[in-house]
């Protein structure tokens, strides 16, 4: 580095043009010292990259057991899953897999892309009652992704038994990010039978084969 080498201005001396110009010239090289302009093109290849320098992937090829278990009802027919009935599901958003939220550790700040996919089932065979025959299926498995409590994506979700993939992206600050992948059923109509003729509860919804994939882009 170039240092102050030419003329050090001191108090009560005259600041002549030469004093300033000489020093500016000598400083030229320090102003334009090694910078990206001096680095050759293609100097950074993959071998030079530190892990997570540019991006970091967070994923679960099988998130937990892949199934929701928070609202699993055992009083159902064997032709149904141990899954959410209106007797066990009391409303609100529940996590796709029971447990703590997913933590994206070491997020360095920047752009986050996150996708969550799987299969979801909603009974959906009943309209809202004889006086409200439309829509045919007013029931949905609503889905949403929260990142640090902020909604990244929210969808109406499947209405029958279908695969889903919900994704979103946004810019987030550095630090560990808390991600919640949640589902929510629509409440029954006043006319819905929620037990069969034998008194078994009717499964209203389930979610399985769940996995998630996220990329943090830090540059």
């Amino acid at each position, binding site marked *: *580095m*170039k240092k*102050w080498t030419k003329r050090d201005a001191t*108090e*009560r*001396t005259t*600041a002549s043009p030469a004093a300033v110009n000489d020093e500016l010239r000598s*400083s030229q090289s*320090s*102003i334009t*010292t090694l*910078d*990206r302009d001096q*680095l050759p*093109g*293609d100097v*950074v290849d*993959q071998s030079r990259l530190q892990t997570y320098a*540019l*991006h*970091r*992937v967070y*994923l679960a*090829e*099988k998130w937990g057991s*892949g*199934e929701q278990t928070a609202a699993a009802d055992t009083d*159902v027919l*064997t*032709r*149904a*899953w141990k*899954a959410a009935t209106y007797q066990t599901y009391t409303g609100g958003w529940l996590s796709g897999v029971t447990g703590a939220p997913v933590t994206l550790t070491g997020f360095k700040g920047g752009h986050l892309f996150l996708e969550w*996919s799987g*299969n979801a089932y*909603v*009974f959906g*065979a*009943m*309209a809202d*009652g*004889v006086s409200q025959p439309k829509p*045919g*299926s007013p029931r949905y498995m609503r889905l949403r992704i929260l990142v640090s409590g902020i909604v990244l994506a929210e969808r109406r979700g499947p209405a029958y*038994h*279908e*695969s889903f993939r919900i994704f979103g992206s946004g810019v987030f600050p550095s630090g560990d990010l808390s991600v919640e992948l949640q589902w929510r059923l629509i409440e029954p*109509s006043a006319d*819905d*039978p*929620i037990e*069969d*003729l*034998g008194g078994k509860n009717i*499964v209203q919804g389930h979610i*399985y*084969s769940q*996995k998630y*994939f996220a*990329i943090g882009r830090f540059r």
Partner: protein
Amino acid sequence: MSRINRQRVEDGDSVDATDLNARFQDYNQSGGLNAFNTRDAAFDLPQFKNPGASTFGFLASYQNSALIGANDYKHSSIVTVTGVSSTPPPATPFIVGNAAGSPTPISFGAAGITVSAGEVLRVYWDLSVYPHWIGSRPWTTGASVDFYTFDNGSGAAMALGTNAACWAFWLQWDITSNALSNFVEVPNQSDFRTPLIGGGTVYGAQLGDTMSTCVVPAFIDRAAPDDGTIPGSPDQVRVGWRGLSGAWYYPKTSGSQTIYGMRVVFTGPMAPNHNSSTGANHLIHSVAWSSDSRLSYAGGSIDVVKQRTG
């Protein structure tokens, strides 16, 4: 880069030695060639190696895609199959192919692709499908497991479909050679031919083994309830053509795996089930009305991306 944050000299300002020296020191501060200046903030796009023909850059190192099925936008050339029969064990899955019946896998070439430690393979696929059936609400007859019985208001039974019967599609890969003659299920995926319960009469998969599976409904039933009963006969509803969409991830944290090709297969109709002893949830073959069940498909695509995880 470091930034100099100091007010500029304006016309009429008197020259002050302290100020002047401070300005020069701004440009000559020690440690200017530190890690931040020359590493964190200095690299720009020109310094990064450009992707070449064999490298796709720092994040994604491989990408490939292929059309699958009978690609016809107007659905005039489709493939139709009948549901798997009741003969145990269930038949091997149907292979998605073209209208002539030839499978349509995606090939990764003679050398295949190798997923190494620190990489992940992402696979996505879609297919235009049309579940349908013959007859009137065949899922409510005989030994079918695809309906519930409700009170019709007079104490008698009224059958209503569960709407849970489905066709299941999943991925297979060949990790032996580019001949693509040894396809097996990808990790975390069952072939739905595992005997589960019932002394070898119930076949399917535990839901935990369906990580590459995506499903579409095999039928839709609909009723208008009235005060906790189903007084009128339900209606069968056309499922119609709909898009199927699947995803699967294959990360490697150690070692490596070479893959030569992948394909989409399917079976059905399938139905929910649980083991009352173990509590495990299953998808099992619903065979009572399978001979009346149909699945038509047209075209779609499969897309593969291999990328670094960090």
